[in-house]
């Protein structure tokens, strides 16, 4: 079993510490529209943190910003991203941050077919990272690649090296992506919708694999998904995002038993379960406001059945209640975090 060597460093710092991150759209003049508004989160060693939200809430942008992979149209407008308490990722140049990419922090993406290079062999794409970060020779890298493929549960690893992505099934491709990601034993694995493009049966397998990796190597995971079920399955703590902000955070139990924010309650209610078989599936009315549609008040107000006048004019702060359970809602504030949010 391989544990993170860095765990020997007795430090209080979190593995990943994002403070008040703001991401804006680049504009020639002025500040530009903000995509992410003051997002903060921490990931401790060995933790699995989930980020859940609808598409457009900014969760993918958040994950890309950690390694400086934002599209050119966006930039970090404020806030800090600290790794291991001493590496300020938000200030790093491309050159400096490259040392972390694929080595300390690795990412896997949603669609393994398009995320792998169709014109290069699997073997090349795995050994590339090994040779780049760990200085392996070609032979050493091949051997290690075989070991990695076996580790992620792929059969016939030696022949797989010579094959191309299109020759594999979707599940196998995602396993390859995971193999690439863990090849240099990263401390943090960022998984952006890793199972969304896969069959339901394969989804479970991939999640199992991620659990296995977590146990064997002690890797922390930042899991992003729109699927609350997966988040609940895998994560210790969850952050709920809406329109570029965190609207609720807490343990999985906290959120399931006592959601404080109406949006969270809505998300929970819309999870299909066998119990709801014969009733119409619930979905939250309305739509996520576009970047320029965000008004001064709570961004969820337009869809919230309990919105007050204050909700529409004032922006609620993210307030922490018992046990680290936090919510961004005036109604929750009013009841001191004791309320069970209704939809």
């Amino acid at each position, binding site marked *: 079993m391989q544990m993170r060597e860095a765990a020997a460093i007795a430090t209080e710092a979190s593995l990943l510490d994002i403070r008040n991150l703001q991401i804006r759209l680049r504009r020639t003049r002025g500040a530009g529209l903000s995509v992410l508004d003051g997002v903060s989160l921490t990931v401790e060693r060995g933790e699995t943190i989930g980020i859940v939200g609808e598409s457009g809430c900014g969760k993918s942008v958040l994950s890309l910003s950690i*390694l400086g*992979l934002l599209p050119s149209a966006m930039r970090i407008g404020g806030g800090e991203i600290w790794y291991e308490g001493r590496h300020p990722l938000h200030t790093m140049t491309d050159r400096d941050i490259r040392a*972390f*990419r694929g080595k300390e922090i690795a990412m896997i*993406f949603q669609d393994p077919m398009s995320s792998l290079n169709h014109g290069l062999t699997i073997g090349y794409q795995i050994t590339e*990272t090994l040779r780049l970060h760990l200085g392996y020779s070609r032979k050493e890298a091949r051997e290690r690649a075989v070991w990695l493929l076996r580790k992620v549960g792929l059969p016939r690893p030696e022949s797989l090296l010579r094959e191309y992505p299109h020759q594999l099934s979707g599940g196998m491709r995602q396993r390859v992506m995971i193999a690439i990601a863990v090849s240099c034993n990263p401390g943090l694995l960022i998984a952006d919708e890793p199972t969304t493009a896969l069959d339901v049966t394969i989804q479970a397998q991939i999640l199992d694999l991620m659990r296995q990796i977590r146990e064997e190597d002690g890797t922390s995971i930042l899991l992003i998904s729109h699927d609350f079920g997966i988040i609940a399955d895998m994560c210790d703590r969850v952050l709920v995002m809406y329109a570029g902000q965190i609207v609720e955070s807490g343990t999985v139990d906290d959120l399931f038993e006592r959601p404080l924010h109406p949006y969270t309650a809505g998300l929970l209610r819309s999870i299909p379960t066998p119990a709801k078989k014969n009733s119409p599936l619930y979905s939250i009315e309305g739509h996520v406001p576009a970047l320029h549609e965000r008004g001064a008040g709570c961004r969820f107000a337009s869809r919230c059945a309990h919105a007050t006048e204050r909700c529409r004019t004032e922006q609620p702060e993210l307030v922490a209640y018992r046990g680290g359970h936090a919510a961004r809602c005036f109604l929750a504030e009013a009841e001191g975090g004791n309320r069970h949010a209704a939809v």
Partner: protein
Amino acid sequence: MNYYARRLLTLLLTVLFVLLLTFAAFRIIPGNPALVILGTEATDAQIALLEEKLGTDRPLAEQFADWLVAAFRLDFGESLRFSEPVTHLIAGRLPVTVSLAVMSLVLTIAVGIPLGIIASRARGKAADMLVTIGTQLGLAVPSFWMGIMLILAFGLTLKWFAVSTFTPWSENPLLAVKSLVLPSAALAVPQIAIVVRYLRTSMLEQLGLDYVRTARSKGLRESAVLYKHVLKNALLPVITIIGINFGELLAGSLVIEQVFTLPGIGSLLITAIGNRDYPLVQGLVVLIAFTVIAINFVVDLSYRWLDPKIRLQ
């Protein structure tokens, strides 16, 4: 039917049509070909002799069959003017044209690909316009005029190159290359324009794909992403384009050889046409057409072989 078998059949059919066309071209002239060649002053005896030589006194179908068989043996008869076997004459002139074509291709690749990569780094409206206008100009300039301009600039004004002299390969390879520089440059200009255009499009297309983000997320340097991941995929269609354009390259060389008075098959063809030397014209036309067909066929096959997605279906 197997894809390759079908392609081969198509190829054969096309070849047959080419031969038919080349043969028919000289038989559709109203009147007697021998008469046309010799002119109205010829005596009956001379005409009869030429007719026998040409074989035009026999039925058309028979003529075609004979000619076809001979063509497959690469026997196109004797040149009317030079009284030498056509194949001989062509073989003598082939090295010049081949070296010209090869040099143009080398230039196209050596200049076109780097330029295409540079063009793909430049984004934004101004860059787009610049690249478009540049490539459009490159395509619009007639290569024979470019040749004349190059002679003016580098031959006469700067005197870097001798004008209108060609040193055969057997005499002095270095000088031979030197005398081919300007003509191959003239030929390469439109080819380079095409390469830049297609490579830029292809690279921009690839750069928008997800695997580029994955490659970056692995910590690769931007140059590694570009050259090891993107370029390899982007070059594939470009190589096909270069191959397909080879025909145009050959066509251009026909005229360029006149501009620079190079003793290649292009100038041989022009001479033959001027002399109404039909066997020679036929042989040359068939040779050039076949070369183009063969190259297109090879390019088609190699594209399927080079793209892993198609190769390993």
